[in-house]
């Protein structure tokens, strides 16, 4: 069990990847926040992660990108991450040959988003890009909270989600053909504290089950009674993550929020967050 406090939670779901250069689908402050430098090399996933971390203010009101170095932990949970940049590097090499710019490569690793997030916010603590399939939101949250619990960082930045390249959509359909691939990334600040506790559960069914399941629900005390679970049909874990963390913000003392994820291979993971004390921080999600 981990103790922690939850800061602001945000979601960026600007629209289909192939319209990411269309001002109509982008947040109005998109270019103001992340700039345009390097846009020919960095992909939509990296840009979305940067928009979230640079645009978000933490509980103290401090804005990122101030050049200050911290020991913050950065955990990115994603299934397809920087696939678009990887594919673009390969295509550009075929097209441009020896004229290919060396600037493509740093933007086209499987953890480029993490690299540029750490670089831009000056986070020198633990950092990792995690893919646990459908269970990614729970595993990523576990690792982020573990870093706080072990005293490795006072602040964790959790990013969960995907901005799908066409190849990623095709890949996702191999095992969840009915699940829509909607672009979006959720971001949350996690702090050391004792307002909330998180208990995790991991396991696997004896047999695979078709499709994926992610649900979010609220319970009162130890009772299973509470509101009916809200199910999320998307392949992308960003939306369930955002809804779950929003729900955590609304909890009264002893109330619980539960996120459960079940994958087509039968593996499942869940996290139950209980509010211990009244929230001293702004509960609003942004």
């Amino acid at each position, binding site marked *: 069990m981990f103790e922690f406090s939850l800061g602001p939670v945000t979601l960026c779901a600007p629209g289909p990847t192939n319209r990411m250069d269309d001002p109509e689908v982008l947040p109005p402050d998109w270019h103001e926040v992340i700039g345009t430098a390097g846009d020919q090399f960095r992909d939509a996933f990296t840009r979305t992660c940067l928009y979230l971390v640079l645009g978000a203010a933490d509980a103290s009101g401090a804005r990122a990108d101030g050049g200050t*170095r911290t020991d913050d932990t*950065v955990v990115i949970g994603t*299934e397809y991450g920087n*696939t678009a940049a*990887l594919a673009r*590097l*390969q*295509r550009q*090499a*075929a097209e441009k*040959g*020896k*004229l*290919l710019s*060396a600037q*493509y*490569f*740093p*933007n*086209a*690793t*499987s*953890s*480029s988003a*993490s*690299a*540029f997030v*750490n*670089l831009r*916010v*000056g*986070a*020198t*603590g*633990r*950092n*990792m*890009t*995690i*893919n*646990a*399939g459908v*269970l*990614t939101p729970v*595993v990523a949250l*576990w690792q982020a909270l*573990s870093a706080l619990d*072990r*005293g*490795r960082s006072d602040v964790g930045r959790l990013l969960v989600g995907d901005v799908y390249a066409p*190849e990623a959509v*095709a*890949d996702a359909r*191999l*095992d969840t053909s009915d699940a829509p691939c909607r672009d979006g990334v959720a971001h949350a600040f996690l702090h050391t504290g004792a307002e909330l506790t998180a208990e995790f559960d*991991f*396991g*696997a069914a004896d047999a695979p089950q078709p499709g994926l399941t992610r649900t979010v629900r609220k319970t009162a005390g130890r009772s299973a009674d509470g509101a009916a679970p809200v199910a999320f049909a998307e392949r992308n874990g960003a939306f369930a993550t955002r809804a779950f963390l929003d729900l955590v913000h609304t909890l009264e003392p002893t109330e619980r929020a539960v996120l459960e994820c079940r994958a087509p*291979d039968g*593996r499942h993971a869940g996290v139950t967050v209980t509010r211990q004390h009244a929230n001293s921080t702004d509960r609003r999600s942004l």
Partner: protein
Amino acid sequence: MNQGAARVFITGLGIISPAGAGADPFWDDLCAGRSRFVELSPLYVGMKPGILGGRVPQEARDIALAQVDAVTRERPRDASLFAEYAALEALRDAGLAPGGQALRDAVVCVGSSDGQAEALEDVVAGRRDISVTGGFSSYSIAQGVARTVGAAGPAYLLQSTCASANVALSCALEMLRAGVADTAVVGGCDPYSEKNIIGFNTLQAIGPVPCKPFTRSRRYVTPSEGAGMFVLQTERALRPGATPYAEVLATAVSNDASHPTAPDRDGVAACHRRSLEEAGLKADDIDVIFAHGTGSRANDTIEGGLFAEEYPRAAVTAIKSTIGHLMGAAGAAGAVAACLALRHRLVPPTAVDPDDVELDLNLVTGAPLAVPDLRHVQNNAFGFGGNNAISIFRSVS
């Protein structure tokens, strides 16, 4: 810093590399300083011929293919083939059987930078339909290892460029110390990746001369492929009479937050300090360091400088001179080598000319170095994006 209560040990090893399938040929090549680099075919117009790389030989692939399960045999992807073979070897080495009780709730955590590279690359190039490839989601690597070993606990893949395997070890260690499970199957894998070769070529970081870590004449990284996996077990999960290779004291993970590709001395030094702090040791306690030692100007200048200044007592070796740079699996190869060094009390050499060594570095060259009192071994892995991860192992005998 709260490290958690459980002591964690490495009880089994497995590896597939350019040396072949298994820990024995790997150790033989390391101790002999024998490399098996081959010339890589140019991948695009303008890429020069003659660039050297390490490839897993066909004989080793055939051995691996004969051992993995039907799902992987039907549509083999290199990363899965390598990781599942190495995991099975590690299980046998630990005296465990796939699906056994000890593995029922086991954590599976695999580090990889390029994942199922050839599947994505074939789709992008229009060579194969995605349904034929089996898919390129990196999670499928961890999923396949979990299926192979019969583990129902958390299974996930870590991507932190060339530090991936050490980060995976760190994440699994956290889970065992937190009580999520008592056993983990962990390591790293990376296949040959066109994208990676193209990228390194644009940086002019690969070439026709093999990597020569810590030498004055060093110039190139030699890309390679393979997988290293190991079994981690808490003290209470150890079989009676078991003799683990090592106790894992620490795996520190940090980021330079400085530059997308170039390492930062302060950031690398900070990771060294964190690993020592986490292990409860001083630099003088470290007997042997398996360096990241890529043979690049930037990495070796920073890493070698730190060794010379902060670790004057430690013997240093860089196995990439022999097996090449296994990318996301580099830390796993280093960890396997570190465990074998602890078992044999022997440090394999860096395959370079001793007269060419730069800095006042205690670099092991020529014959393997016998260290009868070997106690603490450090294993470094760093990567693009400022990723740093350092493990420290302790002898259990």
